[in-house]
């Protein structure tokens, strides 16, 4: 059995035992939870050392540099007070190294115009379907301005939300690159502006329709 399989099996078994211990109503549950918490506390420094070692070898492609980084970060982990603090620090290094390693591949995928179009198309279609679904049965009239506005609002809302999320992801993975930061901020700004404009338009149309109706 490979190391990865063993880790997956162990984590799955621990999750199952924890779930059972938390949900069980007899006296054994709290005892097992206490033991698990204690065991996790003992395990976390070991886990932290392995995590920073994993992170170092994804941080750089130079094995000598990676070995140096691993040694250095393990020293930093040792200086961190508390077992969980060590683990949090290691998780920080591991997530950054993992994101850095995955970034070129994700960037290549996102730079594909087809992928962008498909993603935006799916988001718009999803928002459209959701918007249509929200209209009460029997009240949908294809020529009703209010019904069309209702659908459009959901389309705009869905797209704006998606663009805000994309902007947020780009901002957090910018690693200080001012160009990426500016671009991500603009994405979020325009998404919010679009959302505000669509809401105002919706309110305006509803107001006009109400005036005509009365």
């Amino acid at each position, binding site marked *: 059995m490979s190391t990865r399989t063993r880790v997956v099996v162990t984590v799955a078994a621990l999750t199952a035992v924890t779930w059972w211990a938390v949900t069980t109503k007899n006296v054994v549950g709290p005892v097992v939870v206490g033991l698990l918490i204690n065991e996790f506390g003992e395990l976390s420094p070991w886990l932290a050392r392995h995590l920073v070692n994993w992170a170092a070898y994804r941080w750089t492609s130079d094995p000598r540099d990676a070995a*140096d980084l691993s*040694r250095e970060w393990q020293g930093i982990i040792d200086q961190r007070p508390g077992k969980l603090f060590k683990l949090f620090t290691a998780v920080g290094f591991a997530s950054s190294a993992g994101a850095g390693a995955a970034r070129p591949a994700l960037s290549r995928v996102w730079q594909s115009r087809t992928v962008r179009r498909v993603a935006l198309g799916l988001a718009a279609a999803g928002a459209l379907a959701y918007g249509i679904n929200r209209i009460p049965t029997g009240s949908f009239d294809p020529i009703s301005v209010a019904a069309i506005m209702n659908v459009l609002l959901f389309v705009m809302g869905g797209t704006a939300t998606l663009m805000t999320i994309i902007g947020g992801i780009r901002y957090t993975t910018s690693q200080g690159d001012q160009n990426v930061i500016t671009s991500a901020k603009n994405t979020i700004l325009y998404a919010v502006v679009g959302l505000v404009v669509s809401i105002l338009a919706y309110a305006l149309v509803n107001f006009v329709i109400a005036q005509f109706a009365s």
Partner: protein
Amino acid sequence: MADGPVRVTQPLLDVLEVLLSTEDFRQHGWAIMKATKRAGPTVYRILDRLREAGWVIAEWEAPQPGQTTPPRRFYQLTPSGRVGALALIEERRPSRQRPRWGLGPGFGFGGAR
């Protein structure tokens, strides 16, 4: 050797300030993290860029007899790195009150010591 770090960011300026504020322009990673109050990955990405630009070199401290703590790797500004870092800080953070970094007459802020 490159001209310097291509992207100048606030964390990069923070790290340079920390290195410039030390007596021998060298500091270890953990101390830089603490001084800048920046996360480890942020600091190490910047140190990577500074090393690639030739502004910083990294070296392990010599083990001391009876030392119980793990050895630390120090990051030191190179001579060209010092000049570049000072110029960059003067340009980007001119209004800040800063210590007088000793590079002899003609360098540093606030005139002679």
